């Protein structure tokens, strides 16, 4: 009986978790490609559209460790304070977007392609969005 009760309790726990997952999935639009990040700490204030960084495109070409270990991108949307000067100086996106590894900074539109008003955040499928961090 005690075992049955504890089983019931843990089943209850699992279904509560499932509910959580469903809630997370419906709360957020299922539109953008999974893993897309908007960077807009400064861009729009300075008159440029928000930047969209696509993980799917880059991970076909680079492992995570290239950006998040070698190049030192913090693994948290909105936490890297990127300026255009940094990029021109070869930091952040500028480690590659320098006309050597990839096309250079003159292609403003390719990075600054976001809809107006988008906040710095990770978008896409079913991201986590618990109260703990967001």
């Amino acid at each position, binding site marked *: 009986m005690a075992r049955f009760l504890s089983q019931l309790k843990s089943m209850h726990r699992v279904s509560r978790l499932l509910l959580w997952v469903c809630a997370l999935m419906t709360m957020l639009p299922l539109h953008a490609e999974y893993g897309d990040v908007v960077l807009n700490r400064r861009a729009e204030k300075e008159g440029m559209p928000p930047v969209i960084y696509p993980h799917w495109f880059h991970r076909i070409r680079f492992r995570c460790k290239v950006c998040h270990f070698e190049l030192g991108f913090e693994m948290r949307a909105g936490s890297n304070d990127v300026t255009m000067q940094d990029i021109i100086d070869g930091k952040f996106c500028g480690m590659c977007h320098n006309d050597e590894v990839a096309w250079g900074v003159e292609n403003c539109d390719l990075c600054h392609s976001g809809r107006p008003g*988008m906040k710095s955040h990770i978008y896409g499928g079913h991201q*986590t969005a*618990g109260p703990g961090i*967001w």
Partner: protein
Amino acid sequence: MMLGLVVSMVLEAAGRWRPLANDNLHDPESPAIGVLQEPAEALSQLPPDTSGNLVNWVKALEEGKINPRTNIRPETKVRIRDTDVLMTETGEMPVVRFPHKAHTMWLDCSNCHEQYFISKVGANPINMLKILEGKYCGRCHGAVAFPLTECKRCHSVPRNKIKP
């Protein structure tokens, strides 16, 4: 019932890759539309999955469908680890097998140790709620790596298959 709901939502999400012009993120007026690659063009060529990018990235790498660069600077050390860790505090759910190999193919040790995980078996007080809040495994799973709806991919070892 609950499971059915999850499954149906996953299936719904698995519809298609959205064109950039109506992904709710790109400005449809942007000159980049038409120049940027459409996700469907690249991702439909890779081993399929039912969630996230709808790509099984572990398979894509293993089968050599993609070969992403491991480093930019020649002197950077590329560290791989081969061992699995069984994580057994899973209540009635199957035990979690954490594979170092699948992770270190993509990530460096310092991406996880010691900032998100202490490198000692059982040293991390993890539970599912914390993960759903974006801590521990949820830092990546649910953001960039396959999402948290895929219970079985983590909870992969039935309790009766592990020695006491």
